[in-house]
């Protein structure tokens, strides 16, 4: 029973990690840039849910498409205002451009909205709970997990089954060849940033039903997402999904059966062990 409960809790968290990681890995796959401001995108989306709920009484699950749209716009703006200017710069300059953006956004949030911890209060799913076979599953967590799975599936469908997705993948494969085929890499890059940010926008809305919001909320999620992306293999959406779930489950099992204070140690250790065996992650091209 303990094991089933730990596994269930781990899976529920893992799906949300997976969605955050999916957005990160998409951007990387298309243009080999790691977005170190990813956690701050998540934070902004959570604030968005909070303000929708507090001032317009919009349930975060209803407002979810708005979050996705707003974050899509943010991603595109960030691409044109910042990322395009460092495309040809060394990898480290790119890292610090996005890192600087993260510091900037996080503290701007604190400047405007103060460091208070905010929670949404009553939403459609809060306070509900199911307990099949004695395993407790919270409504918000269940909704978040389902939302995360659906969104990740949509992303995969978009990439694999639509012409936009094929253009994105072609750009990821070979910029020059894609350009010869009439695909504008600039537009594809902007699109990747838009979609990557939209994914984390959805994740933010889903999280906001049960997780408090404050300016630093993104940091820990982002760190886990980095590890999930690397664990799954940079650029692989399915890899990020597998990585996110693996981390959620390892974290939960280690916390219950080994030592709670050490649970993150096991998450990081699993990453190190996996890449020692498979240097490009679980599903990366070896």
């Amino acid at each position, binding site marked *: 029973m303990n094991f089933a409960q730990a596994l269930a809790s781990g899976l529920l968290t893992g799906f949300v990690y997976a969605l955050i990681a999916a957005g990160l890995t998409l951007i990387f796959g298309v243009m080999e840039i*790691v977005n170190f401001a990813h956690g701050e995108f998540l934070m902004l989306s959570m604030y968005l849910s909070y303000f929708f709920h507090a001032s317009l009484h919009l349930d975060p699950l209803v407002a979810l498409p708005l979050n996705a749209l707003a974050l899509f716009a943010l991603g595109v703006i960030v691409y044109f205002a910042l990322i395009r200017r460092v495309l040809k*710069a060394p990898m*480290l300059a790119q890292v610090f451009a996005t890192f600087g953006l993260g510091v900037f956004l*996080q503290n701007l949030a604190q400047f405007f909205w103060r460091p208070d911890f905010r929670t949404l209060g009553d939403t459609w799913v809060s306070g509900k709970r199911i307990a099949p076979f004695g395993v407790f599953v919270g409504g918000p967590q269940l909704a978040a997990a389902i939302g995360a799975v659906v969104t990740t599936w949509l992303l995969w469908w978009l990439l694999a089954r639509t012409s936009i997705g094929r253009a994105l993948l072609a750009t990821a494969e070979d910029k020059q060849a894609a350009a010869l085929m009439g695909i504008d890499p600039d537009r594809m890059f902007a699109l990747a940033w838009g979609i990557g940010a939209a994914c984390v926008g959805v994740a933010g809305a889903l999280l906001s039903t049960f997780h408090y919001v404050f300016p630093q909320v993104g940091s820990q999620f982002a*760190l886990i997402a980095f590890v999930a992306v690397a664990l799954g293999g*940079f650029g692989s959406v399915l890899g990020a999904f597998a990585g996110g779930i693996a981390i959620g489950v390892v974290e939960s099992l280690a916390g219950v059966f080994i030592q709670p204070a050490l649970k993150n140690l096991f998450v*990081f250790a699993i990453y*190190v062990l996996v890449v020692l065996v498979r240097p490009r992650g679980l599903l990366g091209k070896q």
Partner: protein
Amino acid sequence: MRPRTSGLSLQAAVALLAAAVLGWPLIFRGPYPQHIMILILLNALLGTAWNILGGFAGQISLGQAIFFGAGAYTSTLLAQHAEISPWIGLVAGALVAIVIAIAIGGPCFRLSGHYFAIATIALGEIAAIAVTNWDYAGGAVGLFLPVEGTGLAQMKFDDKRGYHYVICALLVLALAVTVWLRGARAGYYWRAIREDQAAARSAGVPATRYKLLAISISAALTAMAGTFYAQYVLFIDPPSVLPLSLSIQICLVAVLGGAGTLLGPLLGAAVLVPLSAATSVLLGGSGRSLDLVVYGALIMVIAVFEPSGLVGLWRRISATVSRN
């Protein structure tokens, strides 16, 4: 890479700079400007040590805090449990860091690019969690060093001048090692590995051995900085000597200054430390973190306009000066 600029000759610039740094605590008597200079030198040392591994050998480490912590904890534990002088602790810390570096480098150097960088983040977090739960090393409570018992032998001083000259000496050591290795065979091999590892290997460069050399030297110098920090602040705990933010800051200093150049980390430290101090003095008291808003914006500006670091700006300025 040796900058043979027609501008301000390197020697003259170095001599001028060295004189200014050495004379600093004699001119500025207040502990605060002295403290800022010590922080600049400490960051310059950390950036220089990172640079050997990240700038010259091209292996991006975001886990330098492991080595910093190794130095800080080794010397402090030796002092607490066996009353061993921090000078011996400094050497012992460097040795411990080298052992850890080889244990990390051995397996992890098979990873490339981002996979290596994330692995160093993961190892850094593992180290922080492990020490937090390690009672012998003070765990989460940390370790205090006694305030009394000052003197050169104890690497503990009543006023900041002593600390200033100790950190100067460590920085000179790091720079000397960098200059020496850069001109020696190691420097050529490192550059070859950084540009194209596969090509370097097929040209007969023993890549793994030279990468291990780079991480060992980088680790040893970083550990010395850690010992110095422990003696300077007299209190260490995991959040102050093992956090991810420290690893990132170390990398930031070198990269914003100019990775792979001798002057880069010095320039990076000389700009970033006063910048962060000034924004926090001018804007930090408000409780609204405007200082960090400005700091983040400036990092973006530098990344966009001087992507290879402030050293490029410096070269252009010195070229202009000499042309006039």
